[in-house]
């Protein structure tokens, strides 16, 4: 294990961290940068609690080496919107989706990529895109409902523009 200075662009802010290049991005974000919205669930890309965006793509930060993220654009749940007002966040609140809430940073970050790529997803599209995110409380029916609602909100917003 050796340490080196790595510069990271997280939520449009620059950070210099002294880290082992092998260190997973998850632990850099949580323990070194101090953004704890991104969660540790399994460590092996099985549960999706740690999903962040790397240049706009959903990645599992628990298996992404920090060296790979250096100089790239990283977005965490804290940077998804300014005021908790991304259509998905609004829909999540409208539908009272979370129970314990632990998985939902990852759920929303996965759903955000789905909605960008597919503005009107069907139930099946949602199942396919969201099957990598575990919710132990079982809020899946509401996740599905909220994604549909967010899709509608996004459509309306687009029409207003």
């Amino acid at each position: 294990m050796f340490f080196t200075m790595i510069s990271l662009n997280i939520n449009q802010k620059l950070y210099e961290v002294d880290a082992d290049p092998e260190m997973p991005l998850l632990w850099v974000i949580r323990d070194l940068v101090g953004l704890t919205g991104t969660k540790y669930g399994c460590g092996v890309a099985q549960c999706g609690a740690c999903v962040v965006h790397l240049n706009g793509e959903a990645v599992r930060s628990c298996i992404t080496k920090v060296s790979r993220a250096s100089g790239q654009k990283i977005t965490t749940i804290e940077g998804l919107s300014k005021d908790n007002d991304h259509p998905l966040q609004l829909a999540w609140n409208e539908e009272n989706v979370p129970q314990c809430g632990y998985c939902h940073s990852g759920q929303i970050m996965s759903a955000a990529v789905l909605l960008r790529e597919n503005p009107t997803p069907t139930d099946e599209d949602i199942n396919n895109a969201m099957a990598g995110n575990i919710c132990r409380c079982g809020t899946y029916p509401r996740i599905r409902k909220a994604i549909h609602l967010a899709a509608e909100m996004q459509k309306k917003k687009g029409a207003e523009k």
Partner: protein
Amino acid sequence: MEEISRRHFIRTASTAGFALWLGVSAKGNPLKSLDIASANFSPYILIESNGLITIYNTKPEMGQGTLQSFPALIAEELEVSMDQIIIKQSNGEKALGNGQRAGGSSSIRSNYLPMRKVGAAAREVLIMAASQRWTVNIADCYAENGRVIHRPSKKSLSYGELIEEASKLELPKEPKLKDPKDFKILGKVSRRQDIPLKTCGKAEFGIDAKVENMLYAVVERSPVFGGTLKSFDATEVLKIPGIKKVDLVERIVGIYKYTGIAIIGNSYWTVSQARKKLKVEWDNNGHDTFNTVDYENHLRKLASEPGVTDKNIGNVDSVKILPKNTFEAFYETPIIAHHPLEPMNCTAHIVGDKLEIWTSTQVASSITGSAAGDLHKQVGFSPDNIKLQNKFIGGGFGRRLYIDYIVEAVNVAKLVDVPVKVIWSREETTQQGPFRPMTFSKLTAGFTEDGKLSTFQHKVISPSYFESIQPDFDKKKVDSIMVEGIAEQAYEIPNLRTTYVRANLHIPVAAWRSVTSSTLAFAHEGFIDELAYQAKKDPMDFRLELLSKQSDSKKVLLKLKEVSNWDKKLPKGKGRGVAIWEFFAGLAGQVVEVTHNKDKTITIDKVIAVIDLGEVVNPDNVNNQVEGAIIMALGAATKPGITFKNGKTVEHNFYDNPLVRINETPKMEVHILTDGGKVKGVGEPGLPPFAPALANAIFAATGKRFRKMPFDLKTL
């Protein structure tokens, strides 16, 4: 002033004026701060003279919604809207009593009336104080939006302005509760204030605790249950930059004490990498011969033992049943893990004789309390010197009723003079227990010659929950948890006997959401279905015939029959199954509809649930809870459990111990019964009926009867 201050008021640092605390006694009566020193007093409302109203939620929030539902009960009667008050999560403060725990679906079922009474009593003294100040008829005054209003003159005073006078008044013993038709909050869909925090990453869970100068630690534990440390060599570990210390720590789980090796360093990544260099030898003490396959065979053999009688109704031995009318079945369930998505973790800091803890626990008052089983005894601190910050809980499900991970973290903190955060990996959270125990069930029943179900015997064969947590547990007695609810089902069977056969097990076992009903309902309600088949009766009619008297169970079944269109015939290849379950936590029933596909797989088309609550606080949240319980039950019924080979847990993580995912989620429909009666719980009752209803539906569709969990839905 001295006298008043002692007797009626608590001065708060934040205000120069008075503050009124109101709470509830252990008997459920509202009390003022008069009795604040008493352990039986739990204050819930703080009204300060500056107008601030704070309502405490003493039930740790783990997704069940108490941050909304608990204050809602008070706010409704106090006549304040939820956005006029500050809702605070309690942290095991001594002044807030020893009931700061969440488990057993008890938050609402135990507090529905007591909390309303607290709010109503406060409202009444505030109104009285206003009427006295104005010297007007009290009947002309009413409370609304945190103010008392004089109806004829329309003048009004805020609660804060009335606090001093109100605190001097006697509290009414039986305050008048609001008519439910006037409810503004209860029974309505309302927002949970924790939700916005949970959608933007701001909700802090135990694992998110940030404490200045904090170090991180992992603990290496014996992979074989019952293994003890022979030797370890940390030379290579200590050479790694950032590693501060390696030393022994103890973890206590019920009657079990385990020694582990803590590796402390400057980041979780550092310590989890460094542990790979640790050389350690364990003495397995013979436990490395333990295998699930052998243990299950052992349980099957134990089924022939008579066991200890739990309940005896009528006399099963005195009735003559012909062998052709006697039926028997044997049901089996696996050990499973809780799998909260937030892995076990705890941060602890020791300064002299003071201990501070940041974690997520279902039992806040066990961390700071002075009872025998509380933390102080296990770690050697005075309860007065223990401070807790209980964060949001990233899933409890019973796992966080146990404080083993907190005990261990405190012992880690003893090794250094700075705060230290201990994080368990997912693998450790999966493998180290405590686990839900399995239950095996031997069922026997007999019909009389005229076709009446006359005898019913349910023998439970399982390891013991109480043996796992109580050092002085009498092994000759029934473990009441392990036979939970089976004698209490409403079916009118004249001769019923329930018995228990205890099996030794050296692995810690624990309550899991819906406790033993999560397995026993499957055996019990599965067998009832088998009996319906033997009696050539429709499973719904068979059950209803056993429920001639009026009961909540009957009510639930009738509702299920209606909302599931039970009498409407299904096309060939489809099947419907029903099950109900009443137990300490509450009562629910379900109908499951399945399709038997041409490729021999089973698809779950629909789950229709009816939950009887008596009264409801937030129907939207109930809906969410019941759906979640069904999904959890689906996992338990169809996914592999935890197994042991050579003394070690075989499964590691979600790839070999999977949970239900969104693409496996069935259609669900939840109906809530709220027509009065006993107030029942929400969090657990949705779980027990699912597995039997599914097994019964599969039987209806395929003729194949599942008597062993997990069910394989792919090769039928």
